[in-house]
């Protein structure tokens, strides 16, 4: 009998603070599986945000820098520019990336920074107790939209991948989800493509992962997965919104 599935080495062997059924744990594992397969953990620098995943510095086995809220792409830019041979990635939530950090996200894309952005979209600010995020769906109830998000007053959710795909410096903008095993496999492939892009110096790769927040959604972990499938995916269609490598192959 051989072990066919176990914790990736790049993921520290510790229990996490994430709530039961939270999607962060799955995405952490996928990122670390990719880092294992590429054998780059010794040359990797992770940049973690402010939010539920701030304490990922205890989980990612590589060197980690904790960035101020929203500024991870800028911190990653600084780290990558002076260490071009290192693998640098940010791991950010939707409040961090799509609200306070929008400028840093867009400009690391326009500059084509050779970094990977793992963007977790769970439609809420998890750490602070479930407030509305830029990705909160119309009508969705949160701490700060107690009567459901009213787009007349609280505006519309932002589709990051579509926005980023318009920037020339972006090599990959792909949205995936972790609500089912096939989607998890797809997510891993996208993450691998993103890190390959970085190693091949193709510019910025952003992988948006539709994920869950059972605690703040007030749903069970399995019901949360259904929410991703039934409510989030229709508003945030999965797919590749930009892929320079594929475009170039097609052009050949």
């Amino acid at each position, binding site marked *: 009998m051989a072990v066919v599935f176990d914790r990736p080495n790049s993921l520290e062997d510790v229990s996490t603070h994430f709530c039961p059924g939270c999607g962060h744990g799955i995405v952490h594992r996928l990122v670390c599986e990719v880092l294992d397969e590429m054998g780059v*953990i*010794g*040359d*990797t*620098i992770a*940049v973690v945000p402010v939010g539920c995943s*701030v*304490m990922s*510095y*205890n989980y*990612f*086995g*590589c*060197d*980690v*820098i*904790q*960035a*101020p809220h929203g*500024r991870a792409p*800028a*911190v*990653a*830019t*600084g*780290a*990558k*520019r*002076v*260490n071009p041979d*290192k693998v640098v990635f940010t791991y950010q939530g939707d409040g961090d990336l799509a609200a306070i950090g929008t*400028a*840093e996200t*867009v*400009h690391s894309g326009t*500059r084509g920074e050779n970094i990977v952005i793992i963007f977790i979209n769970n439609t809420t600010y998890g750490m602070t107790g479930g407030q509305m995020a830029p990705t909160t769906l119309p009508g969705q109830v949160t701490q700060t939209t107690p009567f459901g998000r009213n787009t007349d007053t609280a505006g519309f959710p932002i589709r990051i991948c579509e926005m980023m795909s318009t920037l020339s410096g972006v090599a990959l903008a792909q949205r995936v989800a972790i609500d089912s095993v096939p989607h998890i496999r797809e997510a891993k492939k996208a993450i691998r493509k993103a890190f390959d892009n970085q190693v091949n110096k193709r510019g910025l790769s952003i992988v948006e992962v539709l994920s869950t927040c059972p605690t703040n959604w007030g749903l069970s972990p399995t019901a949360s997965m259904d929410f991703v499938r039934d409510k989030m995916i229709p508003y945030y269609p999965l797919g590749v919104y930009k892929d320079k490598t594929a475009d170039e192959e097609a052009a050949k």
Partner: protein
Amino acid sequence: MKGNEALAEAAIRCGCKCFFGYPITPQTELSAYMAKRMEKSGGVFLQAESEIAAINMVLGAASTGVRAMTSSSSPGVSLKAEGISYMAGSDLPAVIINVQRGGPGLGSIQPAQSDYFQATKAMGHGDFHVMVLAPCSVQEMVDAVTLAFDKADQYRMPVMILADGLLGQMMEPVTFPEAKTELPDKSDWAACGHKNGRKHHIINSLFLDAPLLEAKVKERYERYKQIEENETDAELYMCDGAEIVVAAYGATARVAKSAVTKARAEGIKAGLFRPKTLWPFPVKEINQACKDAKCILDVEMSMGQMIYDVKLATECRIPVEFYGRTGGVIPTPAEVYDEIKKLTGGAQ
């Protein structure tokens, strides 16, 4: 050479490997110079999308053990406050230059010193200090950059050079130190990839366990105490037997020096105390300068901010008067001279 450009050249000579800037008068030439010179010297120049992004790029680069710098002017430095607090909280060395301009708000583009409080008392949230150096000439700015990088690495903290638009825009002859090749080894804490050879390094300022955070802050304050004891610096000019001592720093100190020289020529026992470090404030030096003084005249390009440290340092034993211009208005030697005369009733 122009002050702003000398600051940039000095940084390159000190082995600064990256500069992240953003345009703002009166320091923009510094970024422009970096754009020309940095890449040629094997370093990184990047104009960020905001001062906030710039300070965070410094944070990222410094985290990997590289000498990093950014510069801005008053409003931009306000934007960098959070990042600087994070860097202090993560024990990251870096050099931050503030070429001050009139404030508050958009203020003006002429020189001022109204960011003294911000730099020395409250550069950001939380218990921390940044060392603050106050050069008063282009040569001193070059020397300040060299000192700043060394002290930043030595004490693992951000160091600020508090200049102003006058110093940034003026041109003076200057000599540069030899290019520094060997730089301090930071591999014991830097987050630059562990090559599977060590435990991973974490650059972080979050400590949810309060006693642990307290211990971290207290350890930092031990370092601050060492700095206060060993790193103060000031110039005392004609202070022997001085009955009135003018306290001024930066460009204002040059104005005050002319006034003091003139007063002395007319028999008024005047002297000048010029702090070269604003934090740590030169307490020993000011008391030495004022040992015979009956009065101190604090002169600043602000409504009076350093005056509080002057009073604190001398424990209000001697009356401290104030003369200041603000909003970008530069005091003239004649104005300062008149104040000295008014306070001393002319030569006895």
